[in-house]
């Protein structure tokens, strides 16, 4: 019974198709036959130019310019080997061009036009144009190519475009990409793909029976992609990248009032232009195998222990903690080591003989470890986690590019979920930013911005405005902020800022080297993150350790302390000490932003001990 109903439905629906076919093929046949004849007119897509990416001063970071490309439609070619040989006599074809072409030849349909060479010189293009009648299946095309005029500058923020691949082809609306071969793959190019893309135009072209164009009938102009105006300052970016030089590291400079990203540095960089038309395997291999890992976005994904920079935030925790429990006004004895009750294990201070009697101010100024061991053990890991969370640790900052890492904000519950036990020692080392706690440079700069911006943390924004290429109408990307830090008393923020200022402006401060001659006040904190642990009873001697295992140098700061304009985080991998390796870079950034000048490396401070800190 049910089966016959189903059979009946099949019959009826098939009849419906048959009726529709009769309608199309008999009743409307004349109409469609005419259309088929008239189908000598075909729409050809005109790809729009992709939107420019400009820095805050209008410096071009990414543009599109027309290039001649040499393309081949394989199905029209009788003897590919012969043709390639002939073409080789007209234009230069390198081995890597050939390799790329052969790869496409294997993967793409034979009727598609495949690129053999791009960026032909005018002379080469002319030579091909003259010979074209004898070159069956060869096409000379003018195409727009993405170009990054400053090469590797800010590549980790910009990203790059590349050929549309199979997976993307499935995902995108193909009609929006007609006549286009590229799509944003990474960074801003991917995150702002929609506004950058523009709208494809088309012209109706009359063709003969073989499909060759005869004349244009109608033209709908493409709409150019929108212009991205960044908060980033290319000059500042270049200054930092140059300063870091061959060192591996990351620097983030934020405007704490808006979250605008002034500099987004991860070194080493690489040249995004090589990715645009598909990177050749040898170059790609060498990038992958490079021990400095240039492809890694250290600013966005770098996994670093914050080291002593975490004392900034724990210092605020000390101010905020109930004075019954931990009174920051009391002085703590620092004998140079700390032991947990019932244990013989010594947690050492970076200064072998200790700092003597220290208050919170001195503990931050001189980066005393013992003080913060004691603080961490007193308030406990859960309270530390609760306190650090609103600063954005362990979560994405919400920057406007994809693929950001969350870092790790550990707690006993977090370890329990991973079937691991929380050891008392982990609480101790959390006080100095070691152990499982993992942060990214972007998180550090953003957390520092929260302090600079009176407790309100901004979401980092690379893009300042999206501008229409034709009307120049701008849509400003409005700053976004996280909920205010849940502080008991806001006075504590200024108190903390004063202690942080002592780091750079007093002789015992670990960053006195950059503060003593600064014409404005710097609030900052140095840090040194261990890469290799030092065994009990041993001392760490930088000169005895291979470079890869040397400590990472960190510095986080904002300035001017009374009216913050810039927050900076600096990490120099295996750089040694935060005060000597990382802080001078931050100083350069602040000089640039606040004084508008590029300074030479500052001379050593009189009497300053640059090899301070942990």
């Amino acid at each position, binding site marked *: 019974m*049910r089966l016959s109903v189903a059979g009946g439905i*099949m019959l009826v629906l098939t009849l*419906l198709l048959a009726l529709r076919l009769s309608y199309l093929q008999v009743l409307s046949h004349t109409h*469609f036959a005419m*259309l088929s004849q008239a*189908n000598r007119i075909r729409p050809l897509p005109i790809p729009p130019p992709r939107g420019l990416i400009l820095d805050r001063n209008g410096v071009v970071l990414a543009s599109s310019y027309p290039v001649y490309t040499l393309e081949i439609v394989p199905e029209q070619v009788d003897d590919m080997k012969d043709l390639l040989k002939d073409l080789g006599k007209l234009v230069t074809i390198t081995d890597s061009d050939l390799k790329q072409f052969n790869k496409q030849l294997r993967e793409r349909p034979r009727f598609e036009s495949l690129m053999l060479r791009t960026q032909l010189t005018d002379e080469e293009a002319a030579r091909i144009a003259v010979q074209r009648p004898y070159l069956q299946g060869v096409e000379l095309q003018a195409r727009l190519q993405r170009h990054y005029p400053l090469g590797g500058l800010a590549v980790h923020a910009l990203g790059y475009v590349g050929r549309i691949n199979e997976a993307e082809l499935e995902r995108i609306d193909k*009609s*929006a990409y007609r006549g286009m071969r590229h799509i944003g793959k990474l960074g801003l190019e991917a995150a702002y793909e929609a506004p950058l893309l523009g709208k*494809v135009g*088309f012209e109706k072209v009359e063709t003969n029976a073989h499909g060759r164009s005869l004349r244009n009938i109608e033209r709908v102009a493409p709409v150019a992609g929108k212009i991205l105006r960044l908060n980033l300052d290319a000059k500042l970016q270049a200054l930092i990248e140059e300063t870091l030089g061959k060192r591996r590291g990351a620097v983030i400079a934020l405007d704490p009032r808006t979250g605008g990203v002034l500099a987004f540095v991860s070194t080493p960089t690489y040249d995004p232009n090589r990715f645009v038309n598909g990177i050749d395997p040898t170059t790609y291999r060498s990038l992958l195998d490079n021990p400095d890992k240039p492809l890694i976005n250290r600013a966005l994904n770098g996994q670093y222990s914050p080291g002593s920079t975490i004392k900034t935030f724990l210092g605020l925790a000390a101010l905020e903690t109930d004075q019954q429990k931990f009174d920051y006004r009391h002085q703590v004895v620092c004998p140079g080591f700390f032991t947990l009750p019932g244990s013989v294990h010594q947690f050492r201070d970076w200064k072998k003989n200790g700092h003597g009697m220290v208050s919170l101010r001195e503990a931050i100024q001189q980066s005393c470890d013992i003080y913060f061991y004691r603080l961490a053990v007193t308030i406990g890991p859960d309270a530390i986690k609760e306190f650090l969370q609103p600063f954005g640790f362990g979560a994405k900052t919400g920057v406007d590019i994809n693929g950001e890492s969350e870092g790790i904000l550990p707690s006993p519950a977090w370890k329990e979920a991973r079937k691991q036990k929380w050891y008392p020692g982990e609480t101790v080392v959390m006080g100095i930013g070691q152990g499982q706690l993992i942060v990214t440079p972007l998180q550090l700069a953003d957390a520092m911005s929260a302090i600079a911006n009176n407790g309100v943390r901004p979401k980092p924004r690379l893009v300042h405005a999206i501008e229409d290429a034709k009307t120049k109408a701008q849509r400003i990307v409005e700053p976004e902020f996280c909920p205010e830090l849940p502080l008991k008393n806001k006075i504590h923020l200024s108190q903390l800022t004063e202690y942080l200022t002592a780091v750079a402006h007093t002789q015992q401060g670990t960053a006195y080297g950059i503060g003593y001659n600064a014409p404005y006040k710097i609030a900052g904190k140095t840090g040194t993150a261990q890469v290799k642990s030092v065994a009990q009873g041993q001392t760490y001697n930088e000169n005895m350790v291979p470079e890869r295992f040397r400590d990472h140098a960190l510095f986080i700061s904002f300035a001017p302390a009374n009216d913050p304009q810039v927050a900076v985080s600096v990490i120099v991998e295996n750089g040694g000490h935060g005060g000597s390796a990382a802080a001078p870079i931050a100083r350069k950034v602040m000089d640039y932003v606040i004084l508008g000048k590029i300074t030479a490396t500052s001379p050593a401070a009189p009497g300053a001990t640059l090899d301070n800190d942990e």
Partner: protein
Amino acid sequence: MNFQRLHIDKSLFYALLVLAGLSVLAVYSASGKELSVAISHSMRLLLGFAVMLGVAQVRPEIFERWSPYLFIVGLMLLVAVLVVGTIGKGAQRWLHFGIVTFQPSEIMKLALPMMLAWYLARADLPPTLFRLIVGFIIAAVPSAFIAKQPDLGTAALVFAAGAFTLFLAGMRWKIIILVFSAIAAAMPVVWNFMHGYQRHRILTLLNPEADPLGSGYHTIQSMIAVGSGGFYGKGWLNSSQAHLEYLPEAATDFIFAVFAEEFGLIGSLILLALYLFIALRAMLIAFYAQDAYSRLLAGGLALIFFFSFFVNIGMVVGILPIVGVPLPVMSYGGTSIVTVMSAFGILMSIQTHRRIVEQ
């Protein structure tokens, strides 16, 4: 040749053979007389027939025993596709296993009817309301995964197959009407969840001229191809729409347009009749099946085959939105051929093993 001993259903076998022959002609023409494409299509058909004959040797009880496992494996593969897709940041329908690449959603076209038949046949028919609800969930979960890829066409197809299996099991009419009203009520919600381009396709179906370069262009060009074919057609290899490349995806999703242009109304009606014959023959196998599992499975497979070609041809003649569902057996592209032919293998197994039991 003793078809019975070889577990071959004679009428299905011959009908499929004719269909395969026509498909090679159509693919050759639609690909722009590309011999290599026609040859590779033939090889896939050959593989498809081999798989069908192999599957036909397996006794239905074995399918029944393995149904839940196949379903679970299919589900896991769908999840895997989604996970891989997230990493790749985009729609992913494919899984790569070394050199072999395939679409897990295709497996579901087999695994879902098998699972539902297995589940429903474990108790008396007609099923209780509780079993019906569980059945709906079984059908909805893989469909949701497939829709998430996003592949709305296949998702709708898989879900429809599940729903019809439930219908065959003896769902009461009252419930059917209720479900249909629920679906109608859910439409605005579905609309909200659709991607922009999916909405776009549905809108352009209503007014193809609105987007002459995008999806409307496909519909217009495909209707021109079909309509200009007329009563007798333009003759084999004379499809100007395909050869001047006005027709997109001529060899795959729009192969029927090429066929209709070249062979006219006569050819299209013959092809339609052939498809209907195969679907009805499959239905008849369901009718004769001896146990509940075989009957439900055969019915489900028959319906999924029917809806595959109905949706595809409906799309080509402009009465359904363009969803990118291939025409079974005819379309160039290997993944679906193997699953379609396995389905016929199962049908033949159900048909031929039955008679042996009778003897």
